[in-house]
């Protein structure tokens, strides 16, 4: 191919002055500004969370010491016993003093001691976190593995029979209460069919029912979200370009469209963490899964305030952290944000 000489000369003139390279200086500044902004707001969230979770204790009716002692001994505690207990746990100091004391300890990584078990709250948490993490990660993975392809598939055949079926099934999926679904699965697969154990923890077969229970809602949500996003993307101009290039449908859908549709999907997965945590509380309770969710609910029943406070705080921290990570990931995934700092 021969080219007219004039065309190739002076290629730099039509581009904007100071053309920034990807990942260059400007990209870094945008990243840093975004990061700082998010970090500041994360710190604020945590401060308010600590204050709220601490004041919770003081809005509670009745005396926690009394409740605990009654639970421990099964008898109504005497006045002296209550006094002694409160003194030992600093429960009778003024609100602000306790609050500051708590914050001080917090900054030293001390979250107090469980009233029920006498163990440090942080240790109670870390001891159980693994079980919940296992559940959450498995459920999330299952949802993505199943939900993503189905959502993409439905979007490539809008208003087909498959699409309609998926739509109804996924709507049902987000409508089923998790605790009930868990019990029904147990009934079906443990009791009636005898395929899987319903309680306990340790082997893969123990994992199946809780994970499926937890995954159904997220999968259904994901299918719908992916479908909507893919439909939107598939209507955009650059998909027409991809078709005009003679690319195969597989490439157009799974590369050109999905790569763009995936960006919001990944952010939404971060918000699904809240759903996952809530689900974990329910599912762990139903399946007696020894994770943080079950321990949290048991602590609520027992009014184990240090545990409630500490767990809320840690959960909030995890939540904030994951969302921070998602924000950063988003910036990396979307070259447009990386460049323009759109948030």
């Amino acid at each position, binding site marked *: 191919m021969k080219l007219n000489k004039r065309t190739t000369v002076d290629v730099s003139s039509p581009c904007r002055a100071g053309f920034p390279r990807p990942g260059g200086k400007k990209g870094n500044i945008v990243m840093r500004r975004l990061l700082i902004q998010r970090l500041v707001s994360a710190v604020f969230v945590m401060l308010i969370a600590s204050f709220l979770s601490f004041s919770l204790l003081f809005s509670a009716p009745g005396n926690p010491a009394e409740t605990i002692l009654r639970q421990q001994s099964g008898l109504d505690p005497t006045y002296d016993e209550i006094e002694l207990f409160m003194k030992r746990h600093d429960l009778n100091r003024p609100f602000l003093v306790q609050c500051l004391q708590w914050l001080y300890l917090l900054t030293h990584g001390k979250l107090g001691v469980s009233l029920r078990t006498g163990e440090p709250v942080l240790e109670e948490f870390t001891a159980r976190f693994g079980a919940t993490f296992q559940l959450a990660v498995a459920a999330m993975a299952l949802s993505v593995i199943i939900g993503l392809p189905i959502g993409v598939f439905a979007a490539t055949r809008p208003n087909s029979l498959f699409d309609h079926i998926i739509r109804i099934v996924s709507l049902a999926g987000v409508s089923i209460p998790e605790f009930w679904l868990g019990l029904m699965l147990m009934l079906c697969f443990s009791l009636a069919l005898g395929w899987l154990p319903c309680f306990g923890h340790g082997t893969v077969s123990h994992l199946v029912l809780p994970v499926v229970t937890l995954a159904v809602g997220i999968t259904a949500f994901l299918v719908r979200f992916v479908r909507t996003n893919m439909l939107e993307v598939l209507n955009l101009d650059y998909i027409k370009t991809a078709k005009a290039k003679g690319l195969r449908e597989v490439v157009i859908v799974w590369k050109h469209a999905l790569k763009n549709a995936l960006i919001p999907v990944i952010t939404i997965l971060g918000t699904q963490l809240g759903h996952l945590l809530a689900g974990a509380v329910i599912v762990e309770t139903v399946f007696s899964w020894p994770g943080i969710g079950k321990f949290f609910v048991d602590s609520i029943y027992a009014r184990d305030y240090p545990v409630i406070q500490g767990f809320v705080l840690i959960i909030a921290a995890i939540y904030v952290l994951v969302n921070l990570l998602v924000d950063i990931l988003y910036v990396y995934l979307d*070259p447009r944000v990386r460049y323009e700092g759109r948030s």
Partner: protein
Amino acid sequence: MLLKITSLRVYFKSADGFVKAADGVDLELYPGEILGLVGETGSGKTVLGLAITRLLPKTAAVSGEVLYRGQNLLALPEEEMRKVRGRQVSMIFQNPLSSLNPALSIGEQIAEVLREHQGLKRKAAWQRAGELLELTGIPAKWIRSYPHELSGGMRQRAMIAIGLACAPSLLIADEPTRGLDVTIQVQIVELLHAVTKGVSPPRSMLLITHDLGVAAALTDRLAVMYAGKIVEYGRTAEVFRNPRHPYTRALLDSHPSNGLIATRGFSPSLINLPPGCSFHPRCKKARKKCAHEPPLVQRIGMDHGVRCFYA
């Protein structure tokens, strides 16, 4: 003849009836020739380009014939058609910013065409993509940049590079100079000239444009479209010197910057076209007959035709 379109009709189904975006279009394109397609906005130019490449949405009903090298593209199985796109016929769309994939680097967007149609391996494809970028006037070191990092002119060059990747014999360019600064428009025109007339054998191009200046500079022949029909065609110089259709005349008298709305009145609704000659409500020369009887194309010279009773 490279491309021969006969009585092409494209009707879109809509709530109020059929939108007749192309209503019996006949067009011929010879090898190595640049054919300009001009007309006011909404006259069906883009639809025509999309019909040739069969990229119209499913809501479009298409009939007629599009013969490319004697083969009817409209009757081709989808898989065969896919192999025509990008390899034999390339289309460069309006608005390069939205037509380039924002999540892929321009290098990848060029290289993937080469991998698909020419079976090049990863490295060879990227190598060739770099050459194509240089060819269209983008430094090869920008191969990894993303569309939003480029200026408007650079994006248009990248679009052209994609279109040229597999050396197609026909290029369809839809408003390639729209929205660009005048100096850059000139560069793009020169580039388009270079990649069509400047190669051997010369490459054919269907150039859709609003800009009569661009059409005059680049095209060999010109077709004027109005409300889904070709109302005049002929050699570019001939049409410019001796426009015979009242619409073409108004077009040439008008200023190019106003969206090519050439004359008094509004463009007709493509759903309820005026009876008779679709142009008659706006035509200065209209007579009684024009409102009742649709005019047919009259040949008025060597390769010059007009759809008007009183041309």
